[in-house]
């Protein structure tokens, strides 16, 4: 009976069983059942909210709008078609999803701060429209919904069961999303959105999908809730407070977890009802709920479930020893056939074509021209270096190639295709991989999870596929093995040293099967031994057919590693050539290396 030893499965099952049995065995008061109905409603809403705000980290403070959309859809269409609104649940769900899709396309263009505010603005807009469009919604007088078809003796039990089924469906939806690549991508977005895009995650598509999915359960529930209430009125105050309580529910239970929002929905509703009873008036209820919100944010921001799980895990793993990490073994030559794992399949690109080419790139910041008409090529199969003093425009040029900046003029070509205006994830799909000067791994994920996160393409089948479906895990292990990182597989990325993180980030990029890897100062901030290992990894990747472009200040490294070096100065290419030519070029010595460089070379 190993199943019984897993509290994370047993407890929810017991909980569901109790809920199913409650109307049969519970005390027969209508009040208690009405409270439970509101509990179920909040549990559904908090779970739906969890998809966009818990997983992707985009906190929505206006999600009750989708309940209202569901309520109005059910009420208005139900009257027009002469149907009970609750039978229109699917229509209301689709309607809420459709509205969320349109609104998501607008509000998800903004980053997290503005997003929070825009969600409130959207809520207000919809409520104001509802209040003013009297002919459709009945305005502030409200919209009367017809009574349910069943017998009058026990009018609420059917609603109870409908909402319970909806809750289970919503939890199933959230579980499905969490296990899919979509869910993994959303968590990556929550960790670091820019990084997520750089490893091929179509962040816009993912966010809009999550936002749309999160609204659908609200629509379903709305149609039922409208008939349960018997009327719909647009109240701004009620709508905002409902949104806040949805957030509070997820927060109390634990956002980003499967059952946390469900637990929170029940707790918050009961606290809300309790404070109404206790305080007797509407006014004190607000004070109590406000104080609860403040206390939760201040003292239990992770939520109940993660806190309990953390304590449970700690107790269980107390005895487990931390594996000793042998730095010397990192990046030792493991003779894996790396070429087979990282080669881009089925590409018949002209071998004489440069992998990456920039033509006439200009980038200005206000009055400063950071990059002025730069032409540069990275030949196929080469290790190319890009050096230059601080402020010479290296990083700006780099950012134009990776898509962080859009150049004011000029073009960037990858395998002969113009990618100047391509989105960051499209570049990743097309074979451009990059690392960051300060590593940007997903710190709360394990090394293995970091490696299976990159996506080689965007497709629906991939979004719905399981997180570890396909051969990703196997490939990730082989890449880790090649890099000598195999023993770190289960470590959290944050637990690794900075240098180790740099290697993991390179391994992560390899999972994209890049035709070119752009390395942003790979040697900065890591020790000389590790630099040597890094150099040997780069050489062996290059032997396996990968083209590499390095932006770096460590001149000895660049000159020893590269076939060709471009020197940037004052936003223009000063000189390009082989390492030997660069080493002895008077202009380079003047502008960058300094005369001491010659002295050192002579000493040696």
């Amino acid at each position: 009976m190993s199943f019984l030893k897993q509290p994370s499965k047993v407890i929810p099952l017991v909980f569901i069983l109790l809920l199913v049995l409650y109307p049969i065995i519970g005390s027969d008061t209508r009040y208690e059942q009405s409270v439970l109905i509101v509990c179920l409603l909040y549990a559904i809403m908090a779970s739906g909210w969890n998809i966009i705000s818990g997983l992707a980290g985009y906190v929505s403070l206006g999600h009750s709008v989708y309940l209202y959309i569901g309520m109005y859809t059910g009420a208005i269409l139900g009257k027009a078609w002469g149907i009970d609104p609750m039978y229109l649940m699917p229509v209301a769900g689709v309607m809420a999803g459709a509205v969320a899709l349109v609104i998501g396309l607008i509000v998800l263009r903004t980053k997290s701060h503005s997003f929070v505010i825009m969600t409130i603005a959207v809520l207000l807009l919809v409520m104001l429209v509802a209040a003013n469009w009297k002919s459709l919604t009945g305005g502030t007088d409200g919209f009367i919904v017809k009574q349910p078809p069943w017998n009058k003796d026990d009018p609420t039990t059917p609603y109870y069961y409908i909402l319970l089924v909806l809750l289970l469906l919503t939890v199933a939806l959230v579980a499905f999303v969490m296990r899919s690549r979509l869910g993994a991508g959303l968590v990556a977005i929550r960790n670091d959105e820019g990084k997520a895009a750089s490893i091929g995650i179509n962040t816009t598509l993912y966010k809009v999908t999550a936002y749309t999915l999160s609204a659908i359960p609200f629509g379903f529930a709305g149609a039922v809730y409208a008939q349960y209430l018997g009327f719909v009125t647009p109240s701004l105050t009620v709508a905002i407070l409902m949104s806040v309580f949805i957030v509070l529910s997820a927060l109390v239970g634990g956002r980003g977890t499967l059952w946390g929002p469900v637990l929170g929905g029940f707790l918050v509703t009961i606290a809300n009802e309790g404070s109404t009873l206790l305080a007797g008036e509407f006014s004190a209820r607000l004070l109590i709920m406000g104080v609860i919100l403040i206390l939760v944010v201040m003292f239990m921001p992770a939520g109940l479930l993660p806190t309990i799980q953390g304590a449970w895990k700690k107790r269980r793993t107390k005895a487990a020893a931390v594996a000793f990490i042998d730095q010397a073994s990192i990046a030792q030559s493991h003779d894996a056939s790396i070429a087979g794992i990282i080669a881009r399949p089925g590409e018949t690109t002209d071998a004489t074509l440069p992998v990456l080419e920039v033509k006439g790139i200009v980038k200005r910041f206000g009055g400063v021209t950071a990059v002025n008409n730069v032409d540069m090529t990275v030949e196929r199969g080469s290790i190319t270096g890009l050096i230059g003093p601080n402020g010479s425009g290296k990083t700006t040029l780099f950012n134009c190639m990776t898509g962080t900046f859009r150049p004011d003029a000029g073009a960037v070509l990858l395998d002969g295709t113009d990618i100047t205006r391509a989105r960051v994830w499209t570049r990743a799909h097309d074979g451009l991989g990059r690392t960051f000067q300060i590593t940007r791994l997903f710190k709360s994920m394990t090394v293995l999870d970091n490696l299976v996160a990159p996506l080689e393409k965007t497709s629906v089948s991939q979004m719905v596929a399981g997180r570890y479906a396909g051969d990703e895990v196997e490939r990730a292990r082989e890449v880790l093995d090649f890099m000598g990182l195999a023993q770190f597989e289960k470590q959290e990325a944050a637990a690794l040293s900075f240098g180790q993180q740099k290697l993991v980030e390179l391994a992560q990029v390899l999972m994209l099967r890049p035709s070119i890897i752009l390395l942003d100062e790979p040697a900065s901030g890591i020790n000389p031994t590790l630099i040597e290992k890094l150099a040997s990894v780069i050489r062996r990747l290059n032997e396996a057919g990968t083209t590499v472009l390095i932006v770096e200040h460590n001149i000895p490294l660049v000159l020893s590693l590269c076939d060709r070096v471009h020197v940037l100065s004052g936003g223009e290419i000063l000189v390009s050539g082989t390492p030997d030519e660069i080493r002895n070029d008077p202009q380079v010595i003047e502008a960058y290396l300094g005369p001491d460089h010659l002295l050192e070379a002579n000493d040696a």
Partner: protein
Amino acid sequence: MEILQVLAFGILMGGVYALLASGVTLIFGVLDVVNVAQGSFLVFSALFTWQVWDLFGLEPLLLVPVMGLVMGLLGWLIYRGLVIRVAPQGPGMTVLLMFGVAIAMEGVLNIVFGNKFKSVTPPYFTQSLQVGELVLPYPQLISGLLAIVVLGGIYAYLKFSWAGRALRASAQNKDGAALIGISATKSSSLAFGIGAMTAGVGGVLLAIMYPVYPATQYDWIARLLGIIVLGGMGSVPGAIVASMVLGISEAFASAYVPQWSSVFFYGVILVMLLFRPHGLLGEKTREDVAA
């Protein structure tokens, strides 16, 4: 002539919006905290003004400096007591914290003042200034002008005083400012204090213009947040421009399509953001170094 009349209304209302929104955007610029409690600060100040006026019949405008100071102090306390502890958890959590403050405060106001409209009606409440054919009701005129004066004062303070310079330095680069001896805590407390002060002043002005009750805070939160998003988060000039744009467009909407004037307000924001997702004067932040 009618157009000029509507325009004048719009500019005066825009001035009041500008004062309040600057407070929110200043706090955001320095602390990265979206102060959704600004609406409840505002209503608190307005209801307090009503109470004093109701009890003593005192001229409400005399309360402008008093309420500015009281709310400034309250803002400072809320920052030191609550915000500073939650700030490391990021902007999502501070928004929720401030929502908690807003709701708790509304609860307190409900208990003290009840959930009823309160109006402050000094003698000039129903009088107007006639300039040519232009009719300017005194409450709107006084509020608009006073708001602009206070805003000018804050601007001058930030521009010319040492503390103001320190605050602006913190807004641009917290760590850098700390390295040259500017305490981020002090700058942040100051910013929060000034932000709350604008709500204190604004509350008095609000009281002589409109009837107020605790739940009106939601209208104000929504309006102010809309303004700072439109202006560009953290940009004070942006907030002022957006306030004027919205004050004027709202005045025109309520003159010609009164039923839809509030809808119009949010519609304008959504449409504008379609074209400028970072707001009118907001800047796209550079990501590669921010990481």
